[in-house]
């Protein structure tokens, strides 16, 4: 287990000061995707979706290990 910090970049910056204990970076990526889906589901209910943001996954030293774009969290299907 390690502590991963999942910062949100979408227009502004929402720093994760607390972090989450997760088994590995893969689990942190899944947590990021789950988090983005949660954010987007609320946006969708309000009738707008902004997919331009990303989640920065950092370690305890503040080093960014992975950037997960919001786009990676959803598969978009347009008409037809």
């Amino acid at each position: 287990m390690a502590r991963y910090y999942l910062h949100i970049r979408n227009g502004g910056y929402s720093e994760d000061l607390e972090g989450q204990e997760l088994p590995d970076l893969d689990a942190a990526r899944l947590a990021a995707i789950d988090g983005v889906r949660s954010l987007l589901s609320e946006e969708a209910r309000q009738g707008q979706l902004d997919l331009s943001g990303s989640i920065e996954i950092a370690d305890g030293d503040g080093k960014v290990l992975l950037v997960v774009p919001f786009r990676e969290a959803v598969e978009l299907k347009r008409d037809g």
Partner: protein
Amino acid sequence: MIEKHLLKLRARDTVSPEEEQAIRDSIGEVRTLAADEIVIQAGKVLTFSILLLDGLMCRYKDLSDGQRQITELHVPGDFADLHSFTLKRLDHNIMTITPCRIAIVPHANLERITERLPHLTRLYWFTTNLDAAIHREWEVSLGRRTAIARVAALFCEMKLRSEVVGMTDGNSYALDLTQTDLAECVGLTPIHVNRTLKELRERGLVQFSRGRVTIHDWDGLADIAEFDPAYLYLEKWRL
């Protein structure tokens, strides 16, 4: 030892010296528990109820994919499971969030109270109804409120419940939850909670950091949550 419990009861009704003594006599033993300890497992047959003396506990249910829903938080002075007296086993788990001190109240002693002291029995019936009212309010949050309103409603509720048992310091009180715990209370994810807390902070309503809630604008916070304290039944009433 049961001072906070008495504060909770006396905020709603009078408790006679005889009733107070009966409560004191009903306590079997006192236990100290570590944080994140499962205290009651769903389905297990129970012969006692738990009165929380110090710390923070919760009722919760897990789904098979690891998702957890906390269904109620308990502050000192609450019975975490007075309902187990009549249910005899629970459909949910109960765990500590912080280190806790609990009093074990054997069901046999509660039975004696119901036989001897009808008014105290009604008062305890009231407290399980109060838990049900809290569950209904959380149901409204989980089903209908926006993310920001869910968190705002929880902070309003916990402020008043802490206040009843003398655990607030002006506009501030301890709520020793991680963002993950908070997410499990309001049906969001830690990331979503993080962004929601930022929004509440930037609107100048409330600050949540290191297990402490500081409310800067009660009216604004209550407004966002559409918080109506009626469901906490805070006025005194002769039951």
